[in-house]
């Protein structure tokens, strides 16, 4: 089938078999290998991408279902000038990754949640659901939790005058993780 995927703002006209998952087409046809495939069963979440702004498992969506729709992958997070997304900076600052395999999925699920709900950091239940969406076998999740809170606060311009945080750092530490 002939389809067109709009990935990170760029149109990709493609010829794909219906049986192929969005994740495989992103990696093999669009050559965007930042999206990782772990379990391919919708469990681990490493393949999470944004489909029309909503976080989905790209292993459980067919590429042909995305014809004409807008997809954002981890490659589309950084700004046009190459500056990392606040989430990427926060993940770095909080050491929210070790091996990095799960990181693209966590970044995308968190990016969708933050865009949907800028007050995410103040909603522990929602935050828990977001961080609990994917599997990480290195970090124990706590640093990821901290990173998402940090990014949410940075986005809200509240770094430096936080009412409460999961992990208070000494004053003077670089606030934006740069």
């Amino acid at each position: 089938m002939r389809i067109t995927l709009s990935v990170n703002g760029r149109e990709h006209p493609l010829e794909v078999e219906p049986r192929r998952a969005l994740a495989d087409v992103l990696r093999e046809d669009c050559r965007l290998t930042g999206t990782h495939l772990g379990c391919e069963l919708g469990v681990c979440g490493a393949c999470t991408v944004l489909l029309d702004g909503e976080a989905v498992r790209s292993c459980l969506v067919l590429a042909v279902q995305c014809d004409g729709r807008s997809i954002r992958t981890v490659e589309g997070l950084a700004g046009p000038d190459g500056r990392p997304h606040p989430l990427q900076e926060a993940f770095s600052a909080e050491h929210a990754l070790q091996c990095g395999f799960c990181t693209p999925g966590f970044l995308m699920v968190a990016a969708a949640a933050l865009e949907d709900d800028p007050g995410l950091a103040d909603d522990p239940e929602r935050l828990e659901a977001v961080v609990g969406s994917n599997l990480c076998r290195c970090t124990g999740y706590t640093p990821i939790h901290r990173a998402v809170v940090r990014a949410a606060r940075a986005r809200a311009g509240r770094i430096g005058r936080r009412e409460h945080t999961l992990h208070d750092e000494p004053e003077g530490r670089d606030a934006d993780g740069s």
Partner: protein
Amino acid sequence: MKLPAFDYLAPATVGEAVDALAAAGRDARVLAGGQSLLLDMRLGRARPDALVDINGITGLGQVRVEEGALVAGALVRHRAFESAGVAPGPLGRLLSLAVADIAHPPIRARGTMAGSLAWAHPASEWCAMAVALDAEVELRGPAGERVAAARDFFLGPHATARAPAELITAVRVPLLDAGTGVAFAEHRRTAFCFAQVAVVTALTVVDGVVAGARIGLAGCADRPVRARAAERSLLGAAAAPPEGGGTPPPGHPFAQAGRIAAEHDAAPVAEPYADPEYRRQAIAVLVARTLSGAVADLRAHGEADREAGGAR
């Protein structure tokens, strides 16, 4: 594994979808959210010749309140139920409580309530909710439209009264009256596991006494179960959780109802990590807990429900 080849059909109308499903000589499956179907295909448990993708059909994605019921079209995603405002009164609260335990946000963004009913997994939260609340399934097939009551719909694991050429077009869930408290409880090994046991409860109280009870059980038999014996045992009982909270002690009407649900209503199936005795214990505890929870919900929201003029 990667998916095997299949024919992909993307009808634009319900009629075309039914025609595609009815086309002779092939095993065609409906692709809605795909979060269970594509998973089953990856595991080799389903190998359809054709997928009929209904995502392009307009009008199936609407959720509305109509004639005392919440009507959710076949493409309404789980996510739509995350807000208690999806339905007025206790029903909206119950749906929002239950949906929080259905997979994770990215799965809930795709998966659908109608799809859960069609898939009919014995541990499905929506299926238990459907039997507890007397939901109805609207179907369209080659012979026209029909409505199936949830109590007649589930025939076993992944087996329903839906004919292969029928499409579920909507799920109709009756609203719950003001004066009803709701609760949901689920027991599972980890946040990534299916429910070992889940309980959906709606308790109607008049003058401090239980006047109506609806209890749905997931993971308690080869299909969703309505715990009718437990419900009967509660009628006329004082709607009073134990003093100081906590699990109702033996002898308390809520604990007795839990025991009855476990012994008489449930027919647990042995599974790794959950043999029938273990499940019966979990059922008894969870049912008792949801009954206390339903009274607490009513105390917290009953007044507001009543001021909103009842749900209907």
